[in-house]
């Protein structure tokens, strides 16, 4: 197991280099520089600016310099925001996105999975059908529609929750709910399908024959194994929730990192683009590793060599 983890971590290095190289090439292929402006800058000024940020160096040198800084955790200056470095932007705003993503993930898991179990146990009843309809709605309604709708109901009409921005636990509820609905629905459906499959297995029949209580059969025996497909999507789900937060952060005016994924490209803010892309890549790799480890914990039949 330890060897497995070590090998996976070593594989991370070439993966990151490929991702960073591709990102670097792509972002420098897009026309326009960070200093393209409506009011055209004099050529001499533009040259000065490019020299200041080493944009005149050959591309391989710029790439090398950036990656050397990256491994020492120095992500460079932000070209668009002169008074802030990328490290500062990440330090201030990454925790906000993580909090929002974590709460959304908890909502999705803690509501979605029990909903799936309930639907599977009470298959083909009213509970099952209505849960699945709710799940369908959750997957279909995009956050740009759901967010303002929730604001309208809970903030403007009922006045239970604040409209937007960040700061108190009450501010987290609506955005986390909006962000969670897609994966909530996916968790519900996958849990249900997986439970239905597992409860047909012979060992479940054996347990029931032995006289084990139904709730123990479901939660201790069936659920643990039904969890494997759910775990498969849980890893990427977390990473996805973090970057899908862009739209929700925009709607609710939340100071997270999500919007930088898009605005940095429009601004041609190369250090920010590289940092946000690489961190996202690292996050996916890490989450996938966690998922793989959790397989081994969940199912003793699974062993890694």
């Amino acid at each position, binding site marked *: 197991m330890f060897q497995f983890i070590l090998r996976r971590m070593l594989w991370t290095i070439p993966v990151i280099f490929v991702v960073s190289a591709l990102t670097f090439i792509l972002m420098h292929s*897009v*026309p*326009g*520089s960070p*200093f*393209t*402006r*409506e*009011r*055209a*800058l*004099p050529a*001499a*000024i533009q040259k*000065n*600016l490019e020299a*200041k940020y080493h944009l005149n160096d050959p591309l391989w040198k710029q790439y090398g310099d950036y990656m050397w800084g990256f491994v020492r955790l120095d992500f460079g200056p932000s070209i*668009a*925001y*002169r*008074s*802030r470095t990328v490290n500062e*932007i990440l330090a*201030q*705003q990454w925790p906000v996105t993580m909090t929002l993503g974590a709460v959304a993930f908890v909502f999705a898991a803690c509501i979605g999975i029990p909903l799936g179990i309930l639907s599977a146990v009470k298959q083909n009843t009213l509970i099952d059908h209505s849960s699945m309809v709710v799940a369908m709605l959750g997957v279909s309604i995009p956050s740009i529609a759901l967010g*303002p709708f929730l*604001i*309208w109901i809970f*903030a*403007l009409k009922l*006045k239970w929750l*604040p*409209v*937007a*921005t*960040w*700061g108190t636990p009450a501010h987290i509820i609506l955005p986390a709910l909006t962000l969670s609905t897609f994966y909530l629905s996916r968790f519900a459906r996958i849990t249900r399908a997986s439970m239905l499959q597992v409860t047909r297995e012979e060992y479940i029949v054996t347990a029931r024959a032995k006289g084990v209580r139904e709730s123990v059969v479901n939660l201790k025996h069936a659920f643990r194994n039904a969890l494997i497909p759910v775990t498969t999507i849980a890893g990427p789900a977390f990473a996805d929730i973090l970057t899908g937060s862009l739209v929700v952060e*925009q*709607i*609710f*005016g939340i*100071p*997270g990192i999500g*919007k930088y994924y898009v605005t940095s490209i*429009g*601004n*041609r803010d190369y250090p920010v683009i590289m940092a946000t892309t690489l961190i996202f890549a690292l996050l996916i790799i890490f989450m996938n590793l966690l998922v793989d480890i959790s397989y081994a914990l969940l199912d003793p039949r699974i062993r890694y060599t």
Partner: protein
Amino acid sequence: MWVLALAVALLAGVCAAGQAKTLYWNLASEPPSLDPSLATDTTSHQILKAMFIGLCQFDDATMEVLPDFATSWEFDAATVTWTFHLRNDVYWTDKSWTLEGVPVTAGDVEYGIKRLLAPETASEYAYVLYLIKGAEAYNTGVGSADDVGVKALDNYTVAITLNFPAGYFPTMAALWLCAPLPRVAIEMYGDKWTEAANIVTNGPYILGEWVHEDHLVLVKNIDYYDVDNVKIDEVYCTMVNEASTAMAMYEAGVLDVNDTPPLEDMDRIKSDPVLSLELAQAPRLCTYRYGLNAAKPPLDNILVRKALASSVDRQSLIDYVLKGNQRPAQTWTPPGIFGYVDGVSLGIGYPYDPEAAKQYLADAGYPGGVGFPEVTLMVNTSQAHAKIAQFIGQGWEDTLGIQINITNQEWGVYLNTCATDAPQVFRMGWCADYPDGNNWMNDVFHSGSGNNYEKYNSPAFDALVEQAAVETDPAVRLDLYKQAEILICDTDVAFIPIYFYTFNQLTKPYVVRTFSAIGGESWKNWDILDH
């Protein structure tokens, strides 16, 4: 530090006494920069206007140049020099004691202008001050700072020498470009001098708190020279990009003003009994145009350009698409700017006249649009611009029987495209840097200007605007600009002016406010009533 303590005590005292007057405002985004030499966008300028005084300032309504740091100024024709006499009761204020209590002097004005022009600063607005002697040379790296024509004659007198007598120079003195800057703080903190812990200011408000991307708080500066007239104690600025969310916050009472009501809500606002009374529309000094690339056929034929210009139904566009009471434009410089001519009533430019448009196209050799090649209309990616393009493009297709291909590109790519190989028709706008026709005619459409995406090259036009720049008699200048408008909009049809912008703002009834046409509200003149 004691200033902040006093400000807090003041606020606490006011709170105890009754209410601290706090204005809740929304900035559409995080201010990209609070450095007066670097800021280029309206969000940053709004905050800068509250924090820094200028050499002069504008009257919000009339745009007349009024004293601010400078109490009076005069021009000497012999030396082509403007001399400004400054107040002696303005002090720097900051929380970290860098310059606390130090008087603001003429040396700070000299430093501010030279720093703006320094090549290392790389300011986008440096070109505006090229009329100062030695400015362009210094900015492009061929001259030195000592040769720039800005000199502090003593602590409270500054002399600015120009390349030519520009009657409009005081309008530039009212810009943030000529504001005094705190040299010690800038040299000590470098790029970070604008953070809340470091910044040193001298205006009606100080930067109390700045949590990036989240909120910004301005607190009344009790050392401000005119503090007795500043009524609002605190301005709390949120940073919500999404216009519909800001609208919800305004309706929930969380915001006192909404300066970006969404287009989709305009009908509802106008028919709502409460909101319709809170809506105000004020002129904004910006013009929207469709640039024409006269180097690309079929637009190289002036009759084709006249046909396109005559088949834009501006009023319907304003009534049904824009819904903001904008004003149709047939000329370039908007009303409120010196040099404006009323093209609509004087018959300059091309009003909406479908019959005339069809005739022009027929005379050009394409009766009914037969044989006319497809024309590309490009805008930068945005829902609003796309809607306008669809309306106007459809109008062209219906009236002239031609084919229009509407495309869009991301802003950075778009600017690149327009600069290197502009499409046949492309959308551009311009907002006033300073309220004078020179900024509109010369700075944009002179043949050497980087903002001249149409690549309009008319020696007659260049001569007119160059002469207007140095002319001192306002009546003569006005006539020169009128001739220039006729030349570029009417005779040469270099572009199609579409409309002059307006501000649409919602304000709660308990806010007593002013409207600034040039952008950047004067919060120091506002008040909040009991509510």
